[in-house]
């Protein structure tokens, strides 16, 4: 059932992690220090691993002829269901860290709640992802404090990243019919219920980092409906080119 709320919900979960995982993998070989290069590659691996499990489950439940690979490599941007925040170009290290922090806190809250999913497979995936997300939150939060409370330049860049990203945070907590269905059927969580816990944790770290929480009321949206920024198509063209140029190739 391609349009079942559960399949649609899993695509959102999987696409957030696949797209952010790919963006993060762009740092491989370009990290500011060796340890950070390795850390970002590891985080990318965790995210892509989680995406792999989520999209595999979506493909199985869909019951069509698709697999986790065809979902990742053969869908166009308009069929992707990730939030806009994760598709933005990787930016500088400050932007990457602040985005990771915003997403990791959200992901940890989401996965903690999904451990109680009525879908046993999703609950199992969530229980694994919670452990990984804890590391991601700790890693990125420490860096946010280090950069924010660091030199004048690192502070400015971190603050700019916070300001640039803030208007993309609202979409993470927007609930539509699929989310409400997910919550009422019990397989998912209504993201709007995670907003206050997210704000509390994020504000606490931003304060410790001497960074200012922006006062922005307008929030960007559209990713959950397939309305993306121009950046996603460019990213997919790179991510998908081998699979699309050599259909069915294996090695």
């Amino acid at each position, binding site marked *: 059932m391609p349009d079942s709320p559960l399949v649609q919900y899993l695509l959102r979960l999987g696409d957030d992690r696949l797209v952010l995982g790919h963006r993060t993998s762009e740092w491989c070989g370009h990290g500011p220090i060796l*340890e950070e290069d390795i850390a970002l590659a590891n985080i990318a691996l965790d995210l892509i691993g989680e995406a792999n499990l989520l999209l595999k489950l979506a493909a199985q439940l869909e019951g069509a002829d698709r697999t986790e690979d065809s979902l990742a490599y053969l869908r166009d941007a308009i069929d992707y269901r990730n939030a806009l925040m994760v598709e933005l170009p990787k930016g500088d290290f400050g932007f990457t860290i602040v985005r990771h922090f915003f997403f990791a806190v959200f992901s940890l809250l989401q996965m903690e709640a999904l451990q109680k999913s009525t879908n046993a497979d999703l609950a199992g995936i969530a229980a694994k992802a919670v452990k990984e997300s804890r590391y991601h939150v700790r890693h990125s939060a420490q860096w946010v404090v280090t950069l924010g409370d660091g030199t004048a330049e690192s502070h400015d860049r971190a603050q700019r990243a916070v300001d640039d990203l803030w208007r993309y945070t609202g979409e993470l907590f927007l609930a539509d019919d699929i989310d409400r269905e997910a919550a009422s059927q019990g397989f998912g969580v209504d993201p709007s219920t995670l907003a206050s816990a997210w704000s509390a944790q994020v504000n606490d770290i931003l304060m410790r980092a001497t960074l200012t929480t922006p006062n922005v009321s307008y929030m960007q949206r559209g990713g959950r409906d397939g309305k993306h920024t121009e950046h996603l198509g460019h990213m997919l063209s790179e991510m998908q080119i081998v699979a699309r140029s050599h259909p069915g190739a294996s090695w």
Partner: protein
Amino acid sequence: MVARAPLTRHDVFEILNGVMDPEVPVISVVELGIVRDVELSGADIVVTITPTYSGCPAMREIETEIRGALQAQGFTSVEIRTVYAPAWTTDWISAEARAKLEAYGIAPPGPAVRDELVSIGRRPSTVRCPYCKSTHTDRQSEFGSTACKSIWVCRDCRQPFEEFKAI
């Protein structure tokens, strides 16, 4: 060909205990807790495994090695099933395997953290240097050469080393 008694479940675990983790070749996939169950039915066998990390790139190789080890013992039909629940934890690593890790130069994991809150900032080190056994150690990075390890340095013997992360 000499007829032999059919292998038992216990025998199969013994065989799998000879399959080493490709990244940490001193402990087996059984000691690591990756092998969750074995079901036998004549020459057919089903091995249930669970991944350490969602994106662990060694899982495919581990599957291939498990299959190969069992086929070498005459099992023609080997099915490998992957389960995600209960989620793998380093608490499943036996005391014996922890000693092997330390002897190999990898600090074994402490108890897995179960608290809901994420603590931030410097925490007192409880990680013991596998070389000189000092606990005067510093974490350099949460992330090491594989998803399951972090990087440390010993402030007494000055040796960098890896720790198996507790999850």
